[in-house]
């Protein structure tokens, strides 16, 4: 996120010297061209199906970066600028990876895979991977939304009503810290399908942090904020909806973030233990065939999915809590 902020301030500097060559981009472009040269010219130790494609992609990236560096103009190129050192490091990493695997075969083979082997998974098995992502999302999202909703309502009720707090607090205190995966044997026994069991576990994992942080957020709302509304004729329902909930929202989002993290962990475990679909299952299944390239590819996709969902949640938070930031918005 900070990268985009820096990039946003760059065009102004560019206006003063519009044709400055982007040195970092040039270095990155040359590094990628070098990587392409090594991939294509140095013979592989074994037969790999996607060596030409990998070399071509690296060459294309290198050429584009060199062109961008020469142009040096503001616009989309300027946004890449902060990434310069990373682009160089990635090219060097690719070269090193090529040498220890495909080119010199220094690392034991089934566990360590060559970049072209990983690329091959994406080019050949993208349909299965995409389907797995879809299955994972379809399992995760209903469970997460269910847990978040129940957790939110429970937290508000506990923070608002002393009686609810009296009954709910000990239960939450006993059950909450228990990892949701500990319920796995019971859940798969108690529910008729593994999908229901997994949804229950994901909801449980999300529920606890959302409930606790919503509760603490509502409980810590300053009494004067209620007094203001009460003196103007507000009823309890108005105080909950228009005072308690908005005031607790920053804390609620922390709970939603933490709940998302635990829901990922339950999702993967559930898919490895019982559900016969999704990225967790894909990884488990590939590992059974010693197809480690597929395991790594699925891991990469899973990382992308998780970070994407967290980013989505943060976007939502930034939208809802715009008032909290120091940014002037009219």
């Amino acid at each position, binding site marked *: 996120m900070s990268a985009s902020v820096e990039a946003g301030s760059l065009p102004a500097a560019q206006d003063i010297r519009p044709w400055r060559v982007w040195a970092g981009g040039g270095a990155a472009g040359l590094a990628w061209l070098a990587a392409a040269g090594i991939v294509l010219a140095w013979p592989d130790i074994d037969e790999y199906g996607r060596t030409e494609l990998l070399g071509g992609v690296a060459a294309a990236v290198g050429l584009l970066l060199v062109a961008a560096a020469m142009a040096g103009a503001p616009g989309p190129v300027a946004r890449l600028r902060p990434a310069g050192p990373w682009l160089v490091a990635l090219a060097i990493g690719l070269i090193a990876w090529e040498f220890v695997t495909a080119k010199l075969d220094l690392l034991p083979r089934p566990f360590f895979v060559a970049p072209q082997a990983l690329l091959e998974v994406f080019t050949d098995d993208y349909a299965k991977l995409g389907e797995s992502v879809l299955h994972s999302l379809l399992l995760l999202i209903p469970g997460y939304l269910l847990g978040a909703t129940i957790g939110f309502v429970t937290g508000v009720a506990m923070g608002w009503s002393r009686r609810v707090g009296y009954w709910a607090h000990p239960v939450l205190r006993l059950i909450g810290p228990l990892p949701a995966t500990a319920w796995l044997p019971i859940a798969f026994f108690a529910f008729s399908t593994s999908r229901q069991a997994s949804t229950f576990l994901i909801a449980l994992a999300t529920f606890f942090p959302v409930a606790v942080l919503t509760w603490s957020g509502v409980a810590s709302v300053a009494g004067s*904020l209620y007094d*203001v509304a009460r*003196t*103007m*004729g*507000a009823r309890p329902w108005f105080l909950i909806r228009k005072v308690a909930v*908005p005031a607790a929202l920053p804390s609620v989002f922390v709970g939603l973030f933490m709940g998302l993290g635990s829901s990922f962990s339950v999702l993967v475990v559930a898919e490895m233990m019982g559900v016969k679909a999704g990225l967790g299952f894909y990884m488990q299944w590939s590992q059974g065939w010693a197809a480690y390239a597929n395991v790594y590819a699925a891991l990469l996709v899973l990382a992308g999915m998780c970070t994407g969902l967290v980013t989505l949640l943060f976007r939502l938070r930034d939208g809802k809590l715009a008032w909290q930031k120091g940014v002037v918005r009219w």
Partner: protein
Amino acid sequence: MVNPIGLRLRGIHHAFALKEQDLPVLEDVDLDVRPGGSVALLGPSGCGKSTLLRLVAGLEPPRRGTLEADGAPITGPDPSRVLMFQDPTLYPWRSVRANAALGLEARGLIRTEGGRVDDALRLVGLHEFAEAYPHQLSGGMAQRAALARALVNRPGLLLLDEPLGKLDSLTRLKMQEELVALWQREGFTTLLVTHDVEEALLMAERVLVFSPRPARVVSEIAVDRPFPRHRDDPHLVALRREVLETLGLREAA
């Protein structure tokens, strides 16, 4: 113009329940305010004046004694009696306009009476900042926004709990004048809590001086001068000396 509210308080006792014992804060307080009148409650910090305002606002009931607004007992909060706090207590997640609209929203009048919000913002000079958020306002502007939020309810009684206490001195002087002008024009009853003698004498028809906690009324001073008043008016200067002596601050006078 609004319907100003008259107040009648008799034998008010109040105490805070602490862990071990009760801490008495108000002792046998009587108070009458005529409809449209302006009374200042003056006393040392923490003496219990603010508690008296909370009782009149109906936010809590007294331990003993009767409170009546226009002859009817006060049993709870009512939008006709609006309390303005020392802190603006604006909702940080609402714009100035949405903050000012709070009372109408709470009573479900926002659709029909929504125009009152902008009227109130114009009255306090904040209409150009209607879309701003509280963190973007200065202390004086935030307190003006809180005033607009109170005025939207067309209160018959405005309860002011040291509303200018945290402002810088120039803003404070300006807002004293504005509040007096507003009171004269709109006609609501005003009950002002302050620990600033000069402020009490500038803004109120009558000044009640309270003792340190538990608060009792130790003297009552009628300030028989027309509004707007000037702080260097010799009559006010003499009264100021008298009040300070009552408070035991002979040297300061």
